[in-house]
């Protein structure tokens, strides 16, 4: 039970966990690619991204090429929070197997 409490609640939510996982795989993701890959509604995805941004886990970059494009990436804090989240999950599994 103690290990479970160590899980970062911001990341543990299913939608945000999927976003963090994708962001962990590449340097940055465009909003369009994230939306297409996750199949989330705009409202849902923006709400989750705002939450993660406010917590300092996700950085936002806005560019204007042919049209405005927003990209997202994990901050250093976000990357270490995600790594820690994985470590806690692994511990829960190890403890449960004993």
């Amino acid at each position, binding site marked *: *039970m103690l*290990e*479970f409490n160590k899980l970062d609640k911001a990341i*543990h939510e*299913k*939608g945000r*966990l*999927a976003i963090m*996982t*994708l962001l*962990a*795989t*590449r340097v940055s*993701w465009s909003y369009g*690619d994230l939306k*297409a*890959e*996750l*199949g*989330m509604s705009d409202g849902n995805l923006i709400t989750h991204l705002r939450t993660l941004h406010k917590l300092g886990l996700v950085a936002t970059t806005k560019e204007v090429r042919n049209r405005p494009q927003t990209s997202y990436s994990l901050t250093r804090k976000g990357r270490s929070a995600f790594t820690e989240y*994985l470590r806690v*999950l*692994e511990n*829960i*599994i190890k*403890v*449960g*197997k004993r």
Partner: protein
Amino acid sequence: MDERLNAEENLRVIRQLMERVTVYRAISAPTALVGGILSILAAGAVYYNNEVQLVLGRAVRPREFAVLWIVVLVLAAIANAYFLWREAARSGRPFVSSGMKLALQAITPNLLIPAAFTLWFFQTGYLGAQELELVTVWVAFYGLGLLATALFAPRSLAILGWAFLLTALATPVLSEWIDRLTDDAPDTIMGLTFGLYHLIYAITTWPRSRRMAAGRPLAE
């Protein structure tokens, strides 16, 4: 116990999602099967006409040879687009996914030299009956194109790429021997690479690709 099951489920979801976006199979097993069969048929038809019975009343001309293989390429590309679209629709993912964009960015530069060489072949190259050179360029750059996706493609695709590239490199050495054997080295090499190699790839990757296709979409 519930905690452990939840943790296992979350790790499974994370792993599948990571694999889904970091592994992209630009050529599906069904495409390889269709491409392989078409290539064997094309190579067989040319061989039959040139070496067994002159159905056309003459041997296949160099430009006809190139046109035939371009038709095979177009049909295989259409089949590939269809199979990728079907798999995307089945798993609830976009057809033009970030993985496909990445694969196209990696493959496209490798197609420029074969395209230019083919244009040259149609203009003047055919006069010198340079089919063997054309085939070597096609096989080499197709292999390089596949290898360009190796960072995010399954290992089987990289092995296929190496098989093409090594065959192209061995062509200058082996072409005379193949010519003695079949009397038509360019046609034999096309049948061997685009036909047989693709069939082997299809057979060896088919069960795995079926399992991947059966996977549920994540993070709905």
